[in-house]
């Protein structure tokens, strides 16, 4: 149809409406040569109204842009222009001025946007990483940057509402001593008397004891100071509790907002499972790719992507064509492997639990200060060591097991990730559970050790500080391990591979930056920080510093030691996945927080809540200090007369949004169908035109 039209005109037919602005035969000759190959009427897809009698020229300044969008060679465009008698410069002064202003505004906007990119934290670095190593690695660094900002803002929050007021009001405020009940339980001596050897300073830094224990670092230092002037009252315990709760809520909002943007991107790029191959083939090549290595890498990427897709297809076909017996065999094998993985995990959890118990016992036994400090340090870090070893070994073994299971490649990746996530979170949960076990004597308040003070006073004079210390040690150890691996494993590996060419080093090769395990490490650290923030208010700041150091370390190792990934990780869906896992970590931490606030008895010897039975109880007690009107208002909000209409209203709004959502989905489907049909209509009409013109 269309091709026939074009072929007709390509045989030396000169039906171009020759404009005669050209001075001399020389130019019209070239034009004739050109038009012998194609004419303006060969482009029926582009605005036929423009190939033109030239009478509908209402807006002259609209013209140049339309001409630019026509797929015509430059010479024909020039000729067309001449044919219209160069109407372009003829614009009124006002129009000209408007155009100038628009142009200037647009330029300013692009420059402003560029400047903003420059100001964004690490913007240039991340772009460079994305360009060199691809979307997967870039998404890791984007995630890391998000966490740094989140931690820093949380620290500012905590500093503003808890630490600084505590500092300021410490001398000014009143902290009443309500000594009822057991005197014994209120004794808390974090700094035992005696001379301290100087290297103890360093060891204290590593384990959070000694000078660090009774400082702003940990919960135990804060008092329940209350400042009450005429117009201003500030209660530290209330501030502490509210800040902790608000910190969690704030992190949740940030995560969900970011999930929203990530989900929007994932939805906009369409169902990634639907149009795979054509997108890879036609949109896969980046024409801006420069240089031989980059080109080869891109080609390898495309090759890998296509091969993975094809392999999945063939696996699906093979799975569908299996006989019943083989299917049964495969499923039972998979079940066996799943049980094996479960067994490995349980072994790891048992190891963590045992290590934590042993470590706590050793710490509680430490009466004699002259004992071997290095050994003590080792025992203190034992849970962290066991967790790190488990998090390294078990996924390695699971990878080997996955080779037997014969899942399709994408499912293998997902299953490996899920297993690693479960391992990390449950491992942390086991550690926390063991701690709780020790502190509250397994919840049994009648146990000999816990009867007196409703928590295990003998071992834990100030249990919140101890929990904070454990979290601090986990954080620190994580950072140290990362740096140690960097120095002791990655750099030597690179040096060996580069300088010693043998078969082994060829096989091993330079390492690749494995995005998933690194991201899980980040999520794990963040969960630890969230769990510990209630007991160690400075932990977000320490974590910010840690993540900044980690950023630079990872960047250095990336550029020096890693080769660009040949197997690309789908970055659109993975940003969403990281945030989902982060949300899971948040939930774990919030469970811990809620439990500590509502159930466990605070230490009687330290902290701002030492005189209540629960951390939560400070709220009802201060509630009754509010004015009567406020109390009534808050009661009203909590009453049924208010909440039931509120719930029904929000239910209504949710139904409306869901209905809107499904309607939009349907209309998108309808529009797609319409697009398809329109192209067919167009072809039909062209055929008709052809027939009629015969």
């Amino acid at each position: 149809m269309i091709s026939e039209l074009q072929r007709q005109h390509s045989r030396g037919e000169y039906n171009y409406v020759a404009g005669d602005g050209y001075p001399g035969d020389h130019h019209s000759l070239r034009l004739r040569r050109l038009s012998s190959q194609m004419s303006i009427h060969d482009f029926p897809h582009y605005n036929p109204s423009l190939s033109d009698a030239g009478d509908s020229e209402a807006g002259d300044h609209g013209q140049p842009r339309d001409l630019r969008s026509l797929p015509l060679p430059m010479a024909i465009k020039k000729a067309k222009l001449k044919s219209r008698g160069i109407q372009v410069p003829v614009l009124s002064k006002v129009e000209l001025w408007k155009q100038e202003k628009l142009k200037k505004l647009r330029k300013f906007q692009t420059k402003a946007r560029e400047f903003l990119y420059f100001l964004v934290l690490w913007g240039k670095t991340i772009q460079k990483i994305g360009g060199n190593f691809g979307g997967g690695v870039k998404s890791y660094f984007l995630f890391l940057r998000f966490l740094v900002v989140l931690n820093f803002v949380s620290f500012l929050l905590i500093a503003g509402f808890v630490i600084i007021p505590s500092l300021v009001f410490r001398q000014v405020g009143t902290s009443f001593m309500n000594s009822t009940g057991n005197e014994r339980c209120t004794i808390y001596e974090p700094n035992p008397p005696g001379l301290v050897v100087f290297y103890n300073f360093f060891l204290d830094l590593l384990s959070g004891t000694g000078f660090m224990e009774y400082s702003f670092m940990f919960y135990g230092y804060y008092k329940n100071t209350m400042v009450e002037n005429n117009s201003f009252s500030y209660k530290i315990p209330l501030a502490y509790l509210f800040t902790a709760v608000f910190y969690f809520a704030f992190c949740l909002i940030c995560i969900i907002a970011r999930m929203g943007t990530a989900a929007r991107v994932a939805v906009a790029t369409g169902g990634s499972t639907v149009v795979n191959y054509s997108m890879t083939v036609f949109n896969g090549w980046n024409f801006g790719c420069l240089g031989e290595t980059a080109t080869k890498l891109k080609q390898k990427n495309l090759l890998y992507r296509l091969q993975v897709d094809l392999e999945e297809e063939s696996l699906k076909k093979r799975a569908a064509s299996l006989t019943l017996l083989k299917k049964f065999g495969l499923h039972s094998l998979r079940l066996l492997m799943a049980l094996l993985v479960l067994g490995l995990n349980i072994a790891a959890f048992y190891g963590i639990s045992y290590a934590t118990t042993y470590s706590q016992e050793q710490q509680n036994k430490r009466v004699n200060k002259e004992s071997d400090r290095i050994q003590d340090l080792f025992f203190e870090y034992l849970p962290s060591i066991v967790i790190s070893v488990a998090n390294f070994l078990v996924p390695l073994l699971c990878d080997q097991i996955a080779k037997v299971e014969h899942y399709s490649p994408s499912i293998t990746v997902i299953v490996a990730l899920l297993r690693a996530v479960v391992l990390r979170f449950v491992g942390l949960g086991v550690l926390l559970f063991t701690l709780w076990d020790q502190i509250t004597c397994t919840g049994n308040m009648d146990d000999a050790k816990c009867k007196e003070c409703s928590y295990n006073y003998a071992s834990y004079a100030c249990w919140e500080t101890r929990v904070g210390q454990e979290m601090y040690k986990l954080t620190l150890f994580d950072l140290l391990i990362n740096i140690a691996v960097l120095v002791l494993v990655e750099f030597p590996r690179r040096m060996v591979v580069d300088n010693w060419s043998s078969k082994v080093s060829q096989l091993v090769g330079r390492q690749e930056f494995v995005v998933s395990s690194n991201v899980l490490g980040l999520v794990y650290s963040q969960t630890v920080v969230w769990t510990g923030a209630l007991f160690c208010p400075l932990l977000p700041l320490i974590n910010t510093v840690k993540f900044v150091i980690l950023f630079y370390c990872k960047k250095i190792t990336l550029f020096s030691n890693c080769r660009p990934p040949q197997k690309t990780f789908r970055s659109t869906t993975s940003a969403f996945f990281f945030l989902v896992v982060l949300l899971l970590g948040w939930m774990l931490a919030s469970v811990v927080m809620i439990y500590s606030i509502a159930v466990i008895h605070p230490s009687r010897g330290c902290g701002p809540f030492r005189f209540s039975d629960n951390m939560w109880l400070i709220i009802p007690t201060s509630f009754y200090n509010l004015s009567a009107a406020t109390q009534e208002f808050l009661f009203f909000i909590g009453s049924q007369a208010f909440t039931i209409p509120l719930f029904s209203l929000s239910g209504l709004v949710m139904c409306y949004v869901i209905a809107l959502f499904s309607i939009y989905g349907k209309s998108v489907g309808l529009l797609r169908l319409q697009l398809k049909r329109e192209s067919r209509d167009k072809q039909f009409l062209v055929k008709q035109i052809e027939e009629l013109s015969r």
Partner: protein
Amino acid sequence: MGSKQSIFTAQQLDAYQVGGTPPEDFLVLFYRYRDLAPQLVPLDYTKEPDVKLPYELIGSMPELKDNPFRQRIAEVFSEDGEGNMSLDDFLDMFSVLSEMAPRDLKAYYAFKIYDFNNDDFLCKSDLEKTLTKLTRGELGEDEVKMVCEKVMDEADLDNDGRLSLEDFQHMIVRAPDFLSTFHIRI
């Protein structure tokens, strides 16, 4: 080195601007073109000399040197279809491949680039050649066949065994980053 006015007449400059080259890039592009063969390209274009650079020179540009599709790009944008480009063709090429070109225009030219036999349809052989260039020939024959079949299944809307421009455009409409992948910066 001359200024714009000494190399081109004002009329020519206007025409080039309307034709799609933004004025900031114009002189840069002209000098890049000239640098490929300074002895062939005169500094004075006011008389509109008929100068064409052979494909070998165009293909040796650093932006195109490693692109597996460089030959097709040169062929599509050149007048004679062989890859020998005049200044007009050169400017055309970089204006379509710039970030200012509209999506439809880019889709049109991308279609032409992938159409190896110039029949205005993407048939199986065109797809096979595209795949070979994309993967450096490392994809096996069966795999190539399977991928071509899949692409046809997905994109061929009018079921005639080959992709027309509409099919291609309909598919490219769904690629949000097409504008940035089909882009050469100079």
